[in-house]
């Protein structure tokens, strides 16, 4: 479980932060409403999750709200892993 969150967090840092950006990101950091990830760039995260966990997240479920924190993203992944 925490492995999954860590995996997602690592991806977010690698994919979205500039080299010199020292913003600290936790499982609760608001990624989209906090302006770290914009909704335009969010698609690569969705694709990463789909590939990594072999799931398919319908566009309707890939809302900015569902992608706003590592916690909520991880919950979303769990939901589709079961489905």
């Amino acid at each position: 479980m925490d492995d999954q969150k860590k995996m997602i967090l690592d991806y977010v840092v690698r994919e979205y932060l500039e080299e010199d950006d020292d913003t600290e990101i936790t499982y609760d950091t608001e990624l989209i409403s906090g302006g770290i990830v914009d909704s335009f760039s969010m698609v690569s995260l969705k694709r990463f999750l789909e590939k990594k966990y072999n799931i398919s997240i319908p566009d309707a479920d890939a809302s900015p709200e569902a992608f706003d924190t590592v916690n909520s993203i991880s919950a979303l992944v769990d939901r589709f892993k079961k489905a």
Partner: protein
Amino acid sequence: MAFSTTIRESYRQELNGLRAAGLYKEERFILGNQGADIEVEFPAGAAGRKVINFCANNYLGLSSHPDVVAAAREGLASHGYGMSSVRFICGTQDIHRRLEDRLTAFLGTEDTILFPSCMDANAGVFEACLGADDVMIADRLVHASIVDGMRLCKAMNDTYKHSDMNHLEEKLKEHQDKRIRLIITDGVFSMDGDIAKLDEIVALAEKYDALVFVDDSHASGFIGKTGRGTHEHCGVFGKIDIITTTLGKGLGGASGGCVSGRKEIVEMCRQKARPYLFSNTVAPMIVAGALKVLDLVFTNTERRDTLEWNTKYWRQGLAEAGFDLKQGDSPIVPVMLYNAKLAQDMARDLFAEGIYVVGFFFPVVPQGAARIRTQLSAAHTRAHLDKGLAAFRKVGAKHGILGKGKKEITEMFGK
């Protein structure tokens, strides 16, 4: 359904929310024509105030140039006021085709198609030439109109960190299974004023078999030794597959945009781009004015040379005064203030000093990256620049930020 009180009330609440968040935009009325010296009525109803304009995209100072105005007037007389038709029905005149040919020669491409605006060019081009087997890989800071255009297109989309060539390379590798890979970037980035690394982008495109798209709206007419744009500046003239640009900034400032590039891609736009097919043609007098603009920039680099000199002088003046500037080689010079309220307060104080600039903050720029974006023009004289610099020094001193960088300013004012 009637426009009920409930519906009206819900709009009002949303608008009030924008006001409360400091995101409400107010228009300022310019009394007279566009230029370096303007008179502005703000707030509405206030007496006009004479100010020096440092926030127009009037890079070459051609917005009110007498030769351009005269050419537009002649065009009005010879070709009428409007065409009352989209291009492909009965909206194409000899001068529309001539302007497209001139743009092709100027931009160093194979063919060009005019659009009502560059917003429309960007909204239409991707959908017209890419499909579900393709991928668009865009710099994260591309203009909003490109983001909209990408959303309208069925191709997969992806992004790379701003000007990060390693990240772009990763993405190109990741998408080798696609039919077409299109790298998408602005030539000059409108909020930061930095120039895309087109030489490296073109090299990566060659290595990974990709096409290159550049929006050169903030470059056409003045970036590069003869003002052809970012591709000239970066030594890759003739190597860009798709260029979009506007006639609404440096190139006269009226309106109109284009897609210029590979012949077949332009042809696809003529067949399929919706803003081209379903919106009225660019007015004849604007086409006539734009032809004159191209004559001026083709034959003479004096204006872009003046702009380059002005930009250097302005940058140097602000840097010596102790402002924290975004680095870049374009006439967009952002003064970094980080805090949204500070940016608004300084813009207001500068206006009181006769300098017209605007503060930008989230969501137009990232959170904690508020700034005043200054823009230079060939119409600025040395006196304009000196007056502007004096006002910046005075207002910067008042807010105690001269000589301070990101860390100190953020500590003083918050993010």
